[in-house]
């Protein structure tokens, strides 16, 4: 219940806890992968603290290893994060009247987990005061954000201790698969993923990883069209 600021903080902290089961291994993996790719700890940590978006960080790390040009790396990784514009739009009616610095802080902490918790909570208690909603939102990240930083740091240190050639390169594909598998929950998602795979392979001859960008655009369109088609049939 978002009945007071204190109650909202307590509930946010508690609601965030289960996500640590996902965040800690994910952070560890990014740390290990960063070190495995040859990044100094400062760069691995800068990714984790400044970007704070695991899937996009893994994407950038992989494309850096593929020697893709900076512009392509940025476009592709930012495309992975575009869903957050949707999160931002759907939280705006609830948090839009907060002070600018508060909205800046909330934007920094707007990740899949905080959105997944806050959006249903706000919709259930639309009339709750702004201060309580903001307190709840920030509190959900109270353990998740520090755990993300610390797990990455531990992974980066751990990665340095792993002997050379210990199949660390395989950690990255496995991580991506672990990220994708739960997302394949509907036919449009499967159609989009299949399009992405087929076109990325078919267009892999294109220079600068441009094939991936074209494959992603086509896959988004296929997902959207499949969804439309299913709605019409219903």
């Amino acid at each position, binding site marked *: 219940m978002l009945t007071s600021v204190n109650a909202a903080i307590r509930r946010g902290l508690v609601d965030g806890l289960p996500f640590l089961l996902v965040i800690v291994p994910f952070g560890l993996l990014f740390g290990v992968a960063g070190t495995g*790719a040859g990044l100094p700890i400062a760069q691995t940590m*800068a990714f984790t603290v400044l970007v704070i978006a695991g899937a996009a960080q893994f994407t950038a790390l992989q494309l*850096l290893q593929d020697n893709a040009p900076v512009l392509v790396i940025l476009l592709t990784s930012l495309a992975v994060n575009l869903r957050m514009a949707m999160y931002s739009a759907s939280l705006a009616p609830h948090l839009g009247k907060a002070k600018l610095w508060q909205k800046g802080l909330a934007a920094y902490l707007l990740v899949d987990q905080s959105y997944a918790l806050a959006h249903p909570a706000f919709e259930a208690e639309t009339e709750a005061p702004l201060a309580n909603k903001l307190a709840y939102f920030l509190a959900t990240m109270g353990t998740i954000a520090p755990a993300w930083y610390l797990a990455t740091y531990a992974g980066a240190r751990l990665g340095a201790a792993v002997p050379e050639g210990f199949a660390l390169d395989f950690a990255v594909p496995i991580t991506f698969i672990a990220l994708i598998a739960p997302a394949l929950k509907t036919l449009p998602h499967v159609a989009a993923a299949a399009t*992405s795979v087929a076109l990325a392979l078919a267009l892999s001859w294109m220079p600068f990883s441009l094939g991936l960008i074209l494959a992603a655009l086509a896959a988004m369109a296929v997902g959207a069209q499949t969804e439309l088609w299913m709605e019409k049939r219903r």
Partner: protein
Amino acid sequence: MTADAATIWTVIAGLAAGTFLIRFSFLGLFGQGSFPEWALRMLRYTPVAVLPGLVAPLVLWPQATQGETDPARLLAALA
């Protein structure tokens, strides 16, 4: 990693700034505007549109000698 430090820092800075702007967009910049229906539809599929295409070549054509086992692992992971 063959990219030099300056390139990596550029990627970190660009990704950090771009990601923040995406998150801040409707909260702080555009007010309470909303997306047209078709844009929402496309945005729902951004992660599944990018990540599978990124991982497919890594699994099919790995740099090391693990070539044959990887598709099996992919199927296992998706099952």
